[in-house]
């Protein structure tokens, strides 16, 4: 009869656990429930990952505030999924949703691009000739891909002529897969590039290289294709320990690394890519070429006087304090996401860590005090090395590894669980972040 007592005991335990869980959940909610009453006018430029997440967080935290988001794009793109689309693992639709799907009722969306910012008069003008005065401004417009900087390249080439460009958006990522899969089936020479500017998710060029190598090894087979990774600098990744690990994996897999090669021009007819190198221009033949163009802050930011004057002169990232993301000259202005002028961190994972910091400093300013939270440069990159495996690479400003699960998920080990995170759990986490819940 002992089992019966056991089952009763375990039943009690289960009920106890459930009650505990509910209590924990409601505690979390009551912490969020302390709303701040304010008449502040907050303007947010951009409804991407950062703009949407901060708008919703503020809508949850503030009562009676006017929160306006300005963005002319109707679609919201889940950009971390583009690598999956470009490897044929997900359709283009996987990364596309409507901007309006995500914004909470307390947020007003103006569906026009921002045209000008006047940080002295504290106004933003939109393309529809609206002029919005603000008390606080959050700039989160993302960045622009400067495709024109590469001679001979245009976006219509993507998908044919052996050219891929997965950063350009969902449709282009799908067309990239069309070109890459042809290469994986027929073989030949694959050339993978990255720009010399700051860029969003510096791991993505490596992911695409690794995945297409893995897919080609299963399709056309070893010996029938060659891959060159053209690194723009003298390392493969900005974090030395990660760069070394990638170098070892490249060696193991027979992927050739060419350092200090910056893509300058493409001749799609002859299938030749020209690179600027320290010893002069160099031409490489290709059957598949992955193009990632230089990346810069949008024109509206670069013309607003908010950019760094002495750093990143050709790129125009916003001059913010790297710990608080607050503008160094205009304290009522914050920058979030790709456009922020901080080292590293142009990823959705960084956004997830940045949003609570800006929320803290902004709500503190509204209450007339100083915020306390700081951003340490955390960023994360589930670096997919095969279809089925990834390394969970997390690091901070100092290039220190910052593992979320130390002792459980080893940072530089190719693991299935890291793949599961990227392929299954990441979009859900991202969506929860957009809704201001995570």
């Amino acid at each position, binding site marked *: 009869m002992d*089992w*019966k007592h056991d*089952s009763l005991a375990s*039943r009690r335990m289960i009920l106890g656990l459930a009650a505990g*869980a509910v209590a*924990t*959940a409601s505690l*979390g*909610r009551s912490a969020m429930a302390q709303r701040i009453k304010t008449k502040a006018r907050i303007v947010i430029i951009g409804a991407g990952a950062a703009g949407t997440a901060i708008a919703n967080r503020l809508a949850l935290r503030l009562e009676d505030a006017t929160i306006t988001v300005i963005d002319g794009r109707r679609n919201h793109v889940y950009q971390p999924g583009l690598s999956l689309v470009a490897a044929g*693992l997900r359709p283009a639709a996987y990364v596309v949703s409507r901007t309006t799907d995500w914004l909470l009722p307390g947020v007003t969306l103006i569906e026009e691009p921002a045209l000008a910012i006047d940080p002295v008069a504290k106004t933003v003008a939109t393309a529809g000739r609206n002029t919005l005065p603000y008390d606080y401004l959050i700039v989160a417009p993302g960045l622009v891909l400067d495709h024109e900087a590469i001679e001979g390249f245009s976006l219509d080439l993507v998908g044919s002529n052996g050219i891929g460009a997965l950063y350009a958006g969902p449709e282009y990522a799908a067309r990239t897969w069309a070109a890459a899969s042809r290469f994986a089936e027929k073989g030949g020479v694959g050339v993978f590039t990255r720009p010399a500017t700051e860029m969003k998710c510096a791991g993505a060029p490596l992911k695409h290289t690794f995945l297409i190598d893995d897919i080609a090894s299963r399709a056309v087979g070893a010996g029938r294709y060659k891959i060159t990774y053209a690194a723009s600098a003298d390392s493969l990744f900005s974090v030395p320990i990660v760069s070394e690990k990638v170098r070892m994996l490249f060696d193991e897999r027979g992927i050739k690394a060419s350092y200090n090669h910056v893509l300058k021009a493409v001749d799609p007819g002859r299938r030749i890519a020209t690179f600027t190198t320290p010893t002069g221009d160099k031409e490489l033949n290709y059957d598949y070429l992955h193009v990632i163009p230089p990346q810069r802050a949008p024109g509206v930011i670069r013309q607003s006087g908010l950019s760094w004057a002495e750093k990143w002169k050709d790129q125009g990232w916003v001059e913010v304090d790297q710990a608080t993301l607050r503008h160094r000259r205009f304290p009522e202005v914050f920058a979030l996401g790709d456009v922020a002028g901080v080292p590293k961190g142009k990823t959705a994972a960084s956004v*997830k*860590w940045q949003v*609570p910091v800006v929320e803290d400093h902004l709500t503190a300013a509204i209450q007339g005090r100083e915020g306390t939270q700081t951003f340490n440069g955390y960023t994360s990159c589930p670096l997919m090395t*095969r*279809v*089925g*495996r990834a390394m969970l690479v997390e690091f901070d400003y100092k290039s220190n590894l910052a593992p*979320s*699960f130390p002792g*459980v*998920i*080893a940072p530089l*080990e*190719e*693991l*299935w*669980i890291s*793949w*599961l995170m990227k*392929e*299954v*759990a990441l*979009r*859900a*986490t991202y*969506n*929860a972040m957009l*809704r201001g*819940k*995570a």
Partner: protein
Amino acid sequence: MKDLTLETLVAVFEELYGATLFWSLVAVAALVTAGYLYVLIRDRAMSMRRFLWAQLSMPFGAIAAVLFVLAFTHSGLGDLGGPIDWIVLLGVALLGAGGTAILVYTSQTLLRASPVVIRRRGAL
């Protein structure tokens, strides 16, 4: 992960499956568990015969769960790289096995009458 609270986890699972499907799955799991507890309390005994069938079904449940997860995530057994991967896979197998066992036991019991009733009927 920044704050891994229960609320975050629930939010993530809601996004993963869609809120409706997630809570339906939770409801199904709760119903099956409730059904299991109900038959345990009702019968005041575990039928070893049914439990045997439940046990026999466990390996199938375990394998099915593993195959489902591998297919759903475009991966194969060769992708398992470290101890944590085997632990996760074992967890998936255990969940599949346990879930199937409880489901098989409960459905056998609910589809038939209680052994006490059967015994009484036999006595009559």
